[in-house]
């Protein structure tokens, strides 16, 4: 049971293994270069387990001691995680004893896999989700520790390798796009983010983008809900005319 779930989970995490090997090692090397031994890197990666916040923290660890600032800055950088929980309320509902760890380990990469990957027939969903989270978490911790230990010895040209995580998100975006007939929510996500990026700049666009996404999704919920019903009932041609008309009423 466990082994089958691990085998089913592993292929989904290969892109994360590649991306984290690189980004985790780079993190360990940076921490070491600032005089923080591998023990600190290990603690940070194990308990914080949030890449962008950890990179940001390097600047905090090399400046004057300001714990309140560290807390709120991390809260801001990781605010997007609030949406991950909201999206996975249903999937985690029956997760039982796995639930706390699944939530603890809900990084960008685990979230994107969990919300798109389905376990194959006969594989327990909870073990499957657990192993995806555990594998991603382990890659990050091991890679950052490895970076701290032997980073400076490595010198092959890894420039551009971090793009693997962008590629992962793009692939998931395309798969989700193919699985749906209506693309309202996906388009709202991209358009709001791009608009806020242009308006607020790369360092502060996330929170406004989240607010914009929430507001637009809620305002147009009837239209978007209609779209969802439609995509579910494509086989029943009989219901289609009434739904088209109800959509026109909304317009």
């Amino acid at each position, binding site marked *: 049971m466990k082994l089958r779930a691990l085998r089913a989970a592993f292929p989904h995490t290969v892109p994360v293994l590649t991306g984290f090997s690189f980004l985790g090692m780079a993190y360990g090397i940076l921490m070491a270069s600032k005089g923080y031994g591998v023990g600190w890197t290990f603690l940070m990666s194990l308990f914080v387990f949030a890449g962008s916040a950890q990179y940001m923290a390097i600047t905090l660890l090399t400046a004057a001691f300001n714990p309140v600032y*560290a807390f709120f800055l991390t809260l801001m950088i990781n605010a997007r995680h609030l949406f991950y929980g*909201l*999206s996975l309320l249903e999937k985690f509902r029956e997760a039982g004893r796995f639930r706390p760890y699944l939530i603890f380990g809900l990084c960008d990469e685990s979230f994107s896999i969990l919300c798109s990957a389905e376990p194959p027939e006969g594989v327990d969903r909870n073990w499957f989700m657990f192993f995806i989270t555990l594998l991603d978490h382990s890659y990050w911790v091991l890679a950052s520790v490895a970076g701290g230990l032997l980073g400076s010895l490595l010198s092959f040209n890894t420039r*551009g390798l971090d793009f693997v995580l*962008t*590629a992962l998100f793009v692939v998931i975006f395309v798969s989700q796009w193919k699985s749906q007939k209506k693309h309202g929510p996906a388009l709202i*996500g991209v358009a709001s983010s791009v608009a806020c990026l242009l308006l607020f700049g790369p360092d502060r666009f996330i929170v406004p983008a989240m607010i914009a996404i929430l507001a637009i999704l809620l305002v147009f919920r009837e239209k978007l809900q209609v779209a969802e019903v439609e995509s579910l009932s494509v086989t029943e041609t009989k219901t289609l005319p009434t739904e088209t008309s109800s959509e026109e009423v909304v317009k």
Partner: protein
Amino acid sequence: MTLSPLETVLIVALMALATMTTRFLPFILFPADKETHPYVTYLGKVLPYAVIGLLVVYCLKGVDILAAPHGLPEALAIGVIVALQLWKGNSLVSIGAGTAVYMVLVQGILS
């Protein structure tokens, strides 16, 4: 090491607390054993599609379209990924090929 060990531990602990707040809060606000409001259930259904879009933009936030190479490596690599994924639908192939194309572009041709 600029900070003392105690100060560093405190920073790590507070950062872990902040991260966990963002991850656990939805589950604390909407517990599993209680009926969730239809708005929240609705958001849970549509948000994943919007959030992955946000994540893609988040990854590309550092790209400067005005300066050389004008985001061309990113655009070409994403084009390859989208085409492969629509055509073959094999995630690992799409990701591997897209990343390879990107690395060749930024290390060589368009560097």
